[in-house]
């Protein structure tokens, strides 16, 4: 029966309907594999070929990929959570309790959302430090580093706005403290505080603004900058790897192997 299933799928893939959707088809030829990337609206952000050294796990520990992974988990859990959540006071708290005790799988979704959020903040910091320590911010990748800092700020803001939504004591006071820090900005601090909260205190307006920021504005901003971040990686020559692009010529280096390096590339500034 297994064989007929294969035959069934093979037949299916020959139909006009299938071929109108998936134009290139699968296959293990270089052409087919390149087309799988190049013909896909989401994947053609990547190039069809990359340098082999890009795969090295020890270079990056795949931290950037993992950060994006947590982001995807957060979107996938966050959207279902929105279906049972009313961003009003005090309904928000009742809804959070509902999600935990009444809704099927609600406790699991909320837990997964929360732990993925903590993981994402941690991973984004780890990614930043790893990129720094291996020197992957150097020219021509300077601007991508700046985009990365912007993404770090967006991640922290996402976590901060999401923190208020359960409307429990933890949330309320954490945000009260945080927004009071914002009012410490000289000259415009109080204005910022007022605009951020939509009022003078953390109340219904604040909850709604944080909800819109958390569920719409900041995720869109994040996706926008992530797309630029990936595009810049590609346009800057792929992931940085020291053996491919040593940023500095070390004439005498006791630790690196004496093997031939590619053409001595001096720092070109």
């Amino acid at each position, binding site marked *: 029966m*297994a*064989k007929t299933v294969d035959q069934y799928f093979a037949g299916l893939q020959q139909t006009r309907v299938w071929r109108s959707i998936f134009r290139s088809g699968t296959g293990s030829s270089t052409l087919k594999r390149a087309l799988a990337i190049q013909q896909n609206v989401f994947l053609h952000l990547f190039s069809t070929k990359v340098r082999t050294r890009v795969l090295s796990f020890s270079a990056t520990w795949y931290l950037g990929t993992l950060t994006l992974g947590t982001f995807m988990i957060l979107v996938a859990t966050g959207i279902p959570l929105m279906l049972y959540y009313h961003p009003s006071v005090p309904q928000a708290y009742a809804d959070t309790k*509902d999600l935990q005790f009444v809704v099927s*799988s609600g406790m699991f*979704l909320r837990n997964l959302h929360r732990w993925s959020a903590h993981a994402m903040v941690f991973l984004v910091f780890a990614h930043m430090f790893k990129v720094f320590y291996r020197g992957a911010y150097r020219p021509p990748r300077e601007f991508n580093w700046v985009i990365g800092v912007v993404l770090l700020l967006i991640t922290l803001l996402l976590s901060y706005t999401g923190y208020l939504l359960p409307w429990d004591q933890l949330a309320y006071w954490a945000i009260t403290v945080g927004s009071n820090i914002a009012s410490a900005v000289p000259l415009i601090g109080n204005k910022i505080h007022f605009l951020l909260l939509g009022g003078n205190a953390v109340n219904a307006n604040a909850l709604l603004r944080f909800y819109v920021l958390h569920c719409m504005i900041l995720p869109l901003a994040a996706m926008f900058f992530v797309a630029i971040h990936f595009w810049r990686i590609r346009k800057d020559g792929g992931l940085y790897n020291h053996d491919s692009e040593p940023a500095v010529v070390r004439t005498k280096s006791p630790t690196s192997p004496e093997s031939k390096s590619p053409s001595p590339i001096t720092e070109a500034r």
Partner: protein
Amino acid sequence: MAEEKKGPLGDDLSRRQFFTKLGLGSLSIAAIGTAAFSYQYLEPNVLYEPSPVVNAGKPDRYPLDSVTLDVNNGIYIIHSQEGYFSLSAVCTHLGCLTAWKQELGIIACPCHGSKFEQSGKKIEGPAPKPLPWKRLWLNDDGDLLVDRSTDVPALARDSFVRV
């Protein structure tokens, strides 16, 4: 060369094919499980809506041969010669609230002109079905209760409540 392994149906299976099948099989099970749990998640377990059971009060509020519309709950309490019964006041066409026309002795819907008899049977209009009879009974306190979520057969002997 890989050894000729036999699959579960006796056909030849390479190691790559075996692992592909294993992987795809596990992913399908996970996907089906996820779909099942997602569907369960989407169906609410608790509804914040009023109960379908309505307390219509004591039977002597409804004189003989009267048709009383309860606008807030969308039902008629009718006291006829055979006893008490309850009709849904929601027109079966597109859900408008019908009204009892005393002078004409019919139930009429203002939206598209459907007309019904006292028994719920349709006289004319675009409504596809008669007005359904709702379950009516007496509770221990002697109150009439109507369950709007339960239909009973029209004009059946057990659909009337005799006091």
